[in-house]
């Protein structure tokens, strides 16, 4: 793929970054990506990103976990090997249900949490030993990096970003196939 030029503006404070994002959006420039050392509240909204759907996925995973717990306990304790615990050998799932509630709860949480993390990694295209995508290692420490595509408006963008409080502005060639 053809190499394209991007501008990297570096900030040292999340509040400055937030107001910069608002200014840049107000000037109708498209922000490709922002790299931050920690999650910045409200940044996704300011960038105009679509709201996350992970909560919906999480709810569905939770329902799966609940269903697995119900079916599993029904098989283990009622169908396959009924046991008399505390004088309750009723062979009925419903009558023994209170004993299974902790398991139902735990498996709901277990499924929701683990599958949500796995979904997040898959959607973000992350896996073990993957080469890091962030263009500047300082974004893992105390710097914030905003990446904007350049379409022949270098000088205009540079002066705009300078005004918003960027401490460093670099123009780099970005190879799309590099990651």
């Amino acid at each position, binding site marked *: 793929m053809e190499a394209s030029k991007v501008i990297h503006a570096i900030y040292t404070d999340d509040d400055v970054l937030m107001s910069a994002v608002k200014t840049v959006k107000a000037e109708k420039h498209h922000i490709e990506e922002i790299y931050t050392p920690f999650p910045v509240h409200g940044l996704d909204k300011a960038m105009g990103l679509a709201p996350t759907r992970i909560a919906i996925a999480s709810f569905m995973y939770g329902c799966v976990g609940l269903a697995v717990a119900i079916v599993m306990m029904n098989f283990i304790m009622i169908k396959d090997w009924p046991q008399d615990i505390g004088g309750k050998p009723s062979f009925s799932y419903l009558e023994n249900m209170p*004993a299974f*509630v*902790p398991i139902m709860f735990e498996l709901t949480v277990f499924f929701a949490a683990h599958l949500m993390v796995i979904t997040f990694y898959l959607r973000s295209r992350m896996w073990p030993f993957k080469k890091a995508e962030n263009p500047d290692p300082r974004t893992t420490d105390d710097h914030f990096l905003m990446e904007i595509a350049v379409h022949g408006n270098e000088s205009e963008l540079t002066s705009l970003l300078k005004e918003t409080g960027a401490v460093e502005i670099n123009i780099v060639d970005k190879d799309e196939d590099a990651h």
Partner: protein
Amino acid sequence: MEYKISNRLKIAAIVMIVLGVLGVGYGFMDANSVTEENISDVIAAEHHGGHGDDALTTEAHGDEHAEEAQGESHGESASHAEESHGDDAHGGMTEHEEHALHQIHNRPYSALYVAAFFFFMIALGVLAFYAIQYAAQAGWSPVLFRVMEGITSYVLPGGLIVLAIAFVADSHLFIWLREGTTTVGHENYDALVAGKSGWLNKTGFFIRGLIFLGGWSLYRHFSRKFSIAQDNADDNRNFKKNFRISAAFLVFYIYTESMMSWDWIMSVDPHWFSTLFGWYVFASMFVSGITVIAMITIYLKSKNLLEFVNDSHIHDLAKFMFGISIFWTYLWFSQFMLIWYSNIPEEVTYFVTRIEDYKLPFFGMLAMNFIFPLLLLMNSDYKRINWFVIMAGIVILCGHYVDVFNWIMPATVGPRWSIGIPEIGSILLFGGLFLLIVFWSLGKESLLAKGNPFIKESEHFHY
């Protein structure tokens, strides 16, 4: 930001009180119309469906069996019996008749006590929430402090009312107050109650009650005083004092709240005990209190009196409503499951009574206090929709009224329960009083605690 209780609200509250007094009065008259002379007719009238106890309970709450169960409430059957009274005279009562008579006479007292405690526990729950905000130096909530202070003004009157009802009702509510329960050889002698009489005795009950109430009211008095003094102060001295007394209050509260729950609620079943009952009662009062904060805040906001309260504050309150509802369920279930599983006769009777005679309120409460908040308030966006929070709040409050109902009624009226005129009258009476006192108190000071050092942070609170 000034607020004065509107005439419409005042009139509505007074009408509620008047209707409530009429309802409560009717309840007492109705219950007292059943006497030793006509009790057997009343029981016969109750049983004329031929369904035994089964028909009795279904009649009482008028659910799906209403048609086959002759559709008579106890009030009606009582007056029905009145007509046929005199046909046959009765000398001594059977044990069953005496028991039934007690339950019929206990009902108006219990209805009054349940409603009084319900509104009192809302105010006390808010007081604990308020103290936590100070002790944690929370930055999001100071814009809501005046609303909370308004609600907590009901702690003292509400608590005194609960104690007064307990004093008047005596053995109508607390069976351990019957004559002779601790005297060996007396027909009412109860070895278990006698063994607990070092704690469970009338003098101790009221001394403890006054100490609890005194401590809570003192904290409420001084925290309100410092909060108002902070408004026009040029340093943070009053805020620091409030921080200190709040931390001290929370320690006092968590012990006394627990003891209060043994005294005022758990002791209606003096043979039964549960070690986490105090926490369970706490969860109920906490979630009801937070719900009322949210509802009153939304009400005042709709009158444009709280412009400084934004969607994020409502969102946070709704998150608490959601979270504490689940916390309540967790405690309720922890208590239930251990007792259900171990199946020890002296413990499990508590739940056997409730599942047999109180099926609808017992499981209905679980739906209202757990399933509804869980599903309604799970979505993040819904927590910001004011009318949605109000609707969820109404369900939660009804659920926790039924919760209090399930604490008291099985011990005092047994299967002869109903939600009829005495119960609704009591709710109206104390609901009206609650609204009157709370909104009158809200009108006394500016609705913004403007001197609080966190007030700027709170106004700009954004989630």
